[in-house]
């Protein structure tokens, strides 16, 4: 049994017939080839697959494909305006907040969702928003600092200076 779903990813409309047991993550990665969203556990425990669904950060590995109908998804590929990086992406680079980079898309999406909702989060709020994202390389310090810089500047992550 397949379900017809109509949804948007990074502003582009898609129509697909999806099986009930497929995940949103697999649709993004294997059907739309949007491989910036990563799979680190497939069980909602690492945050590598975080995308923003109708303003809310979600683990795409936990959402079933039929639920895609009618939603607007933002993935890491949708953060920059072509080569023009979002302030948060720039801040990650400036602070050296990435190493192997596998967790990076997930952190960017969690933090972007936070900053869209709350442009001036406190350090606690920032840490709280990324506490479901695992990173084995960085020790988190630079990730928090990169987000803090944008929080201090008081601009939402998706508007350019």
């Amino acid at each position, binding site marked *: 049994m397949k379900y017809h779903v109509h949804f948007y990813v990074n502003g582009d409309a898609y129509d697909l017939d999806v099986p009930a047991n497929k995940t949103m993550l697999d649709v993004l990665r294997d059907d739309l080839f949007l491989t910036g969203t990563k799979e680190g556990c497939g069980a909602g425990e690492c945050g590598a697959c975080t995308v923003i669904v109708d303003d809310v950060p979600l683990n795409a590995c936990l959402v079933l494909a039929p639920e895609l109908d009618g939603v607007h998804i933002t993935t890491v590929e949708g953060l920059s305006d072509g080569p023009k990086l979002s302030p948060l992406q720039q801040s990650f680079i400036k602070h050296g907040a990435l190493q192997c980079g596998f967790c990076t898309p997930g952190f960017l999406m969690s933090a972007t969702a936070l900053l869209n909702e709350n442009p001036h989060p406190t350090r606690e709020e920032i840490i709280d928003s990324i*506490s479901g994202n695992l990173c084995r390389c*960085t020790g*988190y310090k630079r990730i928090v600092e990169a987000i803090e810089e944008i929080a201090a500047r008081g601009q939402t992550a998706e508007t350019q200076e």
Partner: protein
Amino acid sequence: MKYVGQSIERVDAIRKVTGQAQYVGDFHMPRMLYAQVKRSPYPHAKIISIDVSKAEKLPGVRAVITGECYTKRCGLYLEDKNFLANKTVKYQGEAVAAVAAETAEIAQEACDLIEVVYEELPAVTNAIDGMKPDAPLIHPDLHTYKVAPIFFPKPHTNISHHYKLRKGDVDKAFQECDYVAEHTYYIPHVQHVPLEPHVAIAQYEYDGKLTVWASTQSPYAVRQALSVAFEIPLNKLRVISPYVGGGFGSKAGTTIEGIIIPLAMRCKGRPVKLQYSREDEFQNSYVRQGLHCKIKTGVKKDGRIHAVKNEFVWDGGAYTEYGVNIVKAGGFASAGPYNIDNVWTDSYCVYTNHPVGGPYRGFGMCEIHFAIEQNIDIVAKEIGMDPVEMRRINGLRVGDKTCMGETMVVSGYHECLEEVIKDIGYGEKSESTNPRKVRGKGIAAGWKSPSMPTNAGSAAIIRMNEDGTFFLMTSGQEIGQGSDTALTQIAAETLDVDPKLITIRTGDTDHTPYEWQTVASRTTYCAGNAVKLACEDLKKKILELAQIKLGAYKRDLEFKDGYVVHKIYTDRKVPLSEFALGLAFDDGSGVGGPAIGVGTFTLENNINYDKETGIGEHPVAFWTIGVNGAEVEVDLDTGEVKVLRMVSCFDAGKVINPETFCAQSEGAMVQAMGTALFEELILKNGHILNKNFVDYKIPTADDMPELDVKYIEHAEPTGPYGARGVGEPLMVPGAPAIANAIYDAIGVRFNRMPITAEEVLKALKEKANK
């Protein structure tokens, strides 16, 4: 220096923040097949029969293989490993069969249809028991295995290597000591937990060419091992490694590639992909070996350590093809960074029916230092001396001999120690506002050398394009540590060109030149040396042409900002791009040809140790030394330990990129904290009980302490621009520093990690009852 020592932006940064960096799991190929693996439910069993007939009949299945198909053993140092179990299974989860099918679901269904009959065998689930003469033998044919000449398996036992270090006369020395004490420690298995689980794709073409795309730290070592195991000539075997989502050792050597190659060979023309789940990752990639450690220490009244006797028993797991070298490395470093005249060490690698032990960041050092550095504190306390004073007295200085007999040519031990003492505020008590929480501070040092074959090689090629941009080609692998950036900086410095003009290409054995492996914290040092030599080669060739062009002796010319410039008459200069295709003359003729530089590096006079004494004049390339400090707060009601602050200072030789250095230091401290406080692969009768992130917790942003990173730079004489390796050493002192801080807070010693809240609470209760 212009580019070395600068925090230039990571060359992979834009790709990684935009999701454009491609990892093997991101590759989609036409007509790709998917593999799944049938695994053993038993830690030790004889395979009586395997029936694959039902699996083969399932629609969509394209190939099924079992261990019987490929019986040739292979291994990096000791050829003890089969990619699929052959006749017996030696750990729970070991691959016994594998399937390639049109979808991963069909492949899984087919695996479930494979019927395996086992006869369970008694299992070895403790390395100490595994050494006993009546222990069940896990590799009864050990005496027939091929082994590198510096490893010494004991035939008809479970001991796959016994490294002996014999320096001075320990028995006599203990008698001369004023105080002698023996302490034991246990370090359990932990897992690397790279965020990207292992993944590989293999494709076999009709002309016999096999291409493997793998998430690996070691494309060349993979190529070599696969070539031996499957009898494929090296020119027909291509290994490609794109970005790797974290390694920490788990992606060194050969891992899952050996399972998909036989499948690909049966599905000619079609790529076959195997992607590990997180559960596979916990169980079937390498784990850090467990360690039982006994240290006997003899000191004089003045605090000098006069003798140590160590026994290290490593739980190597089912295969120790790589693990034997960790056991050797642990033996090499067994006295710690201290000047001790009499050292006796026995370091044993023992087969058990546990997951396969393999390289993990630190390569044995994190494990032994958890013991060594607590031991210093314990012994110091026992003789009434401040532990840092004891470190000051015994720490290695330039000119001192290491436990292996080499003379230290550089040592930043004391400077790092003083820096950390100052930064952490050692000796100054800080208090929590909550009376039920107590604080403490601890210090620990560490050292590590690259543990690699003494003649491990690196090569690099630099090519100039017509417009004066460059391609730098090496096979040092970017795994997050920043090697692409560091190597680019070394090239930029040597050529005196903007790093933005250089594009680095790595990880393709058909196209990028030889690199032994990206392990041992060797890339900046070894590949860096090769890169520097390649750039110098290119410079030399261009200067030959430039002297014709400029009509000046080459000794008077230099590279500057993308030009060849006359040193005195600086307005006489030619852009480098004019030499990209050689030198062209007015009459239309030319000389020199396209500009290309080649560099190759093997450290000279790096000589194997003596088999009987374990001693050598120059058995390792260098030692990296550093110190960590930690401040913790212990909750007396819950037993929970919160690390408030960690401080690191290492002698890095020369820091090529301060930002990536500091970032690695921070990551290392937090990784060490995870092992100290909560990480353990829980094994019960050979079964792993925690194979997911709920039951195996790694640090999150919530756990992050305040982190402070310092470094000093005493140049490594043989390193490029003085650099030495740091990636692994940075993790070594973290866990014992935390353990020492916990002792300072509550006066309880933990000789086992992890120091969980339950352990702390239990110990506090015991202490109260005494």
